[in-house]
């Protein structure tokens, strides 16, 4: 009897459970149908839920966002969240969807902010994002030239101490007022006054910026020890212009307090760019075209950019963004995609990349590993070089980077990137002897043996001064290609009797370690194309100035000091003779390869670029002869692509 009761009870329990599950699922099913109906017409259906990724502000950081959860989980959550976003829907055929640049609700529109996560408006590097704010000139990584934007011409005086810039007289602010030389000068003065990172950086090299008349600005370089025309000229393409009147309002409302000014969200911004803020929440960020944009003047573009809206759905991780790209919900995708060629070769999707074959993108940056030269063991160049020699770079490129990088056999290591424009600065025959074969384990072992660094206590690990060579190779968790690269470096250590452990902390604590030289081996990417390259790459590897910064984000993380290199770095900015420059860069490459303070692991594009042509077409491609770089239609001269987009018939 008792047994029967149990059976009946358990049956009841099970059916109750089942019913509740069905009820639960039923609810969400009806949700799905309501949200997918509009999806079928116009609106992208998969809005990934927002995840605050506050620490990931730069796009270097964001594009590698963690892929921890499965796609199913994302989709489930997505359907729950869609209903509310439908009210904000913009017509699909007027909206260009991006992915991989914005990872949370936009927190400010302030170019002076130190912790902005705004991937739509603020990305002030040498190829600055030109959608909302604009720089004086746009950099084009394809030909290495500056193209006019707010400024129309620039010229140096003979001894390179004064840079005169003529502004475009048609340029106007979004409130209709004229963009003038006063604005340029005030922008610089405000950056300096409140010591924003831009201000701190440029005030070292720029003495003052003066408005000569409404359309002429003179940038005066410092002529003391910090005389650096290269750095001064990068002001043209990497600093966003702000309006004097508006800045004064901001200063006034914040009582000229430096922290308050830098933290002002500037939601009422005045800008020159073609797009302005439209909507931002935890599901998507949208900017809307300013139909009075000054750039439709014949002196600039002569027309408006084609898409009325640029929208960025907030995806939880790379996987969610990739799914959206393959479903045509994302048009331009700035994300690393494993085996990207399968999207068109096997799935037959209308997706393409910059190049049709490996490496698929325009590679110009060099992710490199730094050795901390202050750590015992790593202060010996034999140890550093042995690790560098033993690493299987071809494996890193083929598997960690999924083949999306040229190999070191094609482009031998040096201080310059794999583009022709930079490679002409290095004499590769002169440094051929210093190159090493891929995964040269025997050579590395011999090098260590010859240097007397051997395993004396028989535990399989070599010692220096009686301590085992044991190091931690670190990079932020979730940056999949970097994590895998570090694993391959660790595997190389095992082959040469050096214990290398991988360590993948959260990005924020990794940044702490890297910027304060508190690591054994760490990884960061040498800057991509820019006016200052390859000089900025040289600085990245050797600059003592960077190493002395209390919080160093710029390079030479391992505090490697070399007087010869420092002398060359001082000489390069003022040198104009190309033969001499070639000599300098060749010498730097020699030091880099011989001393191995840092080692290049792969090449990669500064921005990943994959486009889906379901809605829009006529994106830049390598062979189209338009000279528009693949910067996701947003950065530097790449924004020119927005004016040529067409709807698919």
């Amino acid at each position, binding site marked *: 009897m008792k047994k029967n009761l149990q059976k009946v009870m358990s049956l009841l329990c099970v059916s109750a459970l089942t019913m509740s599950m069905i009820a639960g699922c039923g609810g969400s099913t009806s949700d799905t149908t309501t949200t997918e109906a509009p999806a079928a017409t116009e609106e992208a259906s998969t809005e990934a839920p927002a995840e605050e990724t506050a620490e990931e502000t730069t796009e270097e950081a964001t594009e590698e966002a963690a892929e921890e959860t499965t796609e199913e989980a994302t989709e489930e959550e997505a359907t729950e969240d869609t209903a509310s976003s439908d009210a904000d829907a913009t017509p699909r055929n007027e909206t260009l969807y991006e992915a991989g640049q914005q990872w949370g609700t936009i927190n400010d529109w302030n170019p002076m902010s130190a912790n902005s996560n705004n991937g739509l408006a603020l990305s002030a590097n040498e190829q600055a994002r030109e959608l909302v704010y604009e720089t004086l000139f746009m950099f084009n990584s394809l030909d290495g030239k500056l193209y006019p934007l707010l400024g129309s011409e620039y010229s140096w005086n003979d001894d390179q101490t004064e840079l005169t810039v003529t502004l475009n007289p048609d340029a106007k602010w979004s409130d209709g007022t004229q963009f003038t030389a006063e604005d340029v000068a005030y922008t610089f003065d405000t950056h300096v006054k409140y010591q924003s990172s831009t201000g701190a950086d440029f005030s070292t090299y720029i003495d003052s910026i003066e408005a000569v008349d409404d359309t002429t600005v003179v940038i005066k370089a410092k002529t003391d020890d910090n005389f650096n025309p290269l750095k001064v000229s990068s002001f043209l393409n990497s600093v966003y212009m702000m309006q004097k009147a508006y800045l004064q309002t901001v200063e006034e409302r914040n009582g000229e307090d430096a922290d308050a000014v830098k933290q002002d969200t500037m939601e009422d911004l005045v800008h020159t760019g073609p797009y302005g803020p439209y909507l931002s929440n935890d599901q998507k960020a949208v900017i809307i075209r300013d139909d009075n944009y000054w750039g439709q003047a014949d002196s600039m573009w002569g027309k408006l950019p084609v898409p009325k809206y640029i929208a960025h759905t907030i995806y939880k991780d790379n996987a969610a963004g990739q799914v959206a790209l393959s479903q045509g919900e994302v048009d331009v995708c700035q994300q690393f995609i494993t085996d990207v060629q399968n999207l068109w070769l096997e799935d037959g999707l*209308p997706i393409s990349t910059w190049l049709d074959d490996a490496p698929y993108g325009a590679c110009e940056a060099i992710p490199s590993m730094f050795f901390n030269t202050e750590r015992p063991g790593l202060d010996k160049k034999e140890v550093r070089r042995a690790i560098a020699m033993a690493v299987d770079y071809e494996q890193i490129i083929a598997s960690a980077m999924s083949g999306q990088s040229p190999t070191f056999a094609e482009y031998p290591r040096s201080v310059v990137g794999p583009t022709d424009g930079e490679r002409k600065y290095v004499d590769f025959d002169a440094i051929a002897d210093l190159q090493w074969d891929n995964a040269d384990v025997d050579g590395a072992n011999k090098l260590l043996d010859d240097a007397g660094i051997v395993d004396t206590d028989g535990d399989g690990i070599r010692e220096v001064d009686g301590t085992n060579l*044991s190091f931690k190779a670190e990079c932020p968790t979730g940056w999949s290609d970097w994590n895998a690269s570090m694993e391959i470096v660790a595997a190389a250590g095992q082959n040469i009797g050096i214990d290398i452990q*991988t360590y993948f902390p959260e990005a924020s604590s990794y940044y702490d370690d890297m910027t304060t030289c508190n690591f054994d081996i760490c990884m960061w990417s040498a800057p991509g194309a820019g006016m200052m390259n390859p000089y900025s790459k040289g600085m990245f590897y050797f600059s003592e100035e960077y190493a002395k910064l209390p919080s160093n984000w710029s390079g030479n993380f391992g505090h490697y000091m070399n007087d010869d290199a420092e002398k060359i770095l001082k000489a390069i900015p003022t040198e104009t003779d190309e033969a001499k420059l070639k000599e300098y860069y060749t010498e730097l490459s020699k030091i880099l390869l011989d001393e191995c303070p840092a080692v290049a692991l792969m090449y990669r594009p500064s921005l990943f670029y994959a486009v889906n042509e379901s809605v829009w077409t006529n994106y830049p491609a390598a062979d189209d002869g338009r000279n528009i770089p693949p910067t996701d239609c947003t950065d530097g001269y790449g924004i020119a692509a927005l004016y040529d987009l067409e709807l*698919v018939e």
Partner: protein
Amino acid sequence: MKNTLKQVFHSGKFLFGFCIFVVIIATCIIYPIFVTADPLQMIGQGNFFKPGTYVSIEESTLSKSYTLQLPKEFSKLEAVLDIDTRSEIQQFLIKQAGIAESEIDVTDAEALVEQWKANYDPDTKYKGLTTAKRKALKRLNNEINAALKDSGVIIAEKDEEGALAQSKVIKDTDYVNINDVTKKTFILGTDNFGRDVLTELIAATKSSLKIGLLAGTIATAIGLILGLLAGYMGGLADNIIIFITNLFTVIPSFVILILISYSVGDNARGIAMVGIIIGVTSWPWTTRSVRSQVISLRNRDHVNLSKLSGHSMFRIIFTDILPYIASYVVMAFILQISSGILAEAQLSMIGLGPATTKTATLGLMMQWAMTYSAHLNGSWWAYFPVVILIALISFSLNLMNTGLDQVFNPQLRD
């Protein structure tokens, strides 16, 4: 004892679970005898190579070839021109080349190709096509050209001056005997690092089982000792132990697990350390249930008799109480092993497992497969066998547990 074992093995459920488990263990032991390769060796240069046999192309071209007159099932051209491709060509001819639809006969492959060749120029930038489409057509053109080509591939070698000299022609009737060439079979393909998934899977199962066994042993030992003491001694000792146990029960053990693994750091996290960490966080429920069993036993007559005889506490616990709950403890042990394996998988999935380059574990395999989006690329071999194996291990252990339960629990006995 013999009788009990006999009874146990008469239980169908137990036997089934036991067989699966033995097969898994046996595979873990036998496979490495035959395949001695390092399971973590990165062989394939690239992500997720398909399962199958890979033969050396160089050797295939150089080794002795056999001519086989195999009947061809279809012409190469027919193979290239499937229905979709034909309609694509038709679309192109109508829209871009301006040929009337009536002039196109999609059923006649050769005529279609002729029209295609006449009208398609790979260097022209056709209007009204997306870049992706243009590139697809270019690839199609290459395929058609390859299909039209006469049989035969020329092998040429470079001489000293760098000029090419023809050394061999390979015809479409040429075959090599697969035993003549170097080959490598990946039954389950390769993973994102280019490692052989099958070899890695078996090494991973082995280490996962080790971790599970270690975690299970530790958890059961702690749980058993604390449970026995609390249950038998009662009073203050019971209060203290149950207080601690409650503390551990209310904090989700997985959270403690994450915190401990994180604070231990990567350096120390080997198989043993992960096993120990899982073990010391998963004992509370064993303690609680052992304690309640002991409480119901401690007032039995034979226990009271032992007490009267002046036996020590430990003797009473080990001879008068433990044997009565032994079957229960075995079952708890099995469940602990199973949950230990799952816990390792979860830990590794979030990157807190053992080091990737030193050990293979099931969780790590899952983690890397997900990181390199194997689930989006259709590379099922990188994660599906792992899922199946984790499921099989815990299924077999749970099955054994249910079988034992049926044998030992009089209420469930038929």
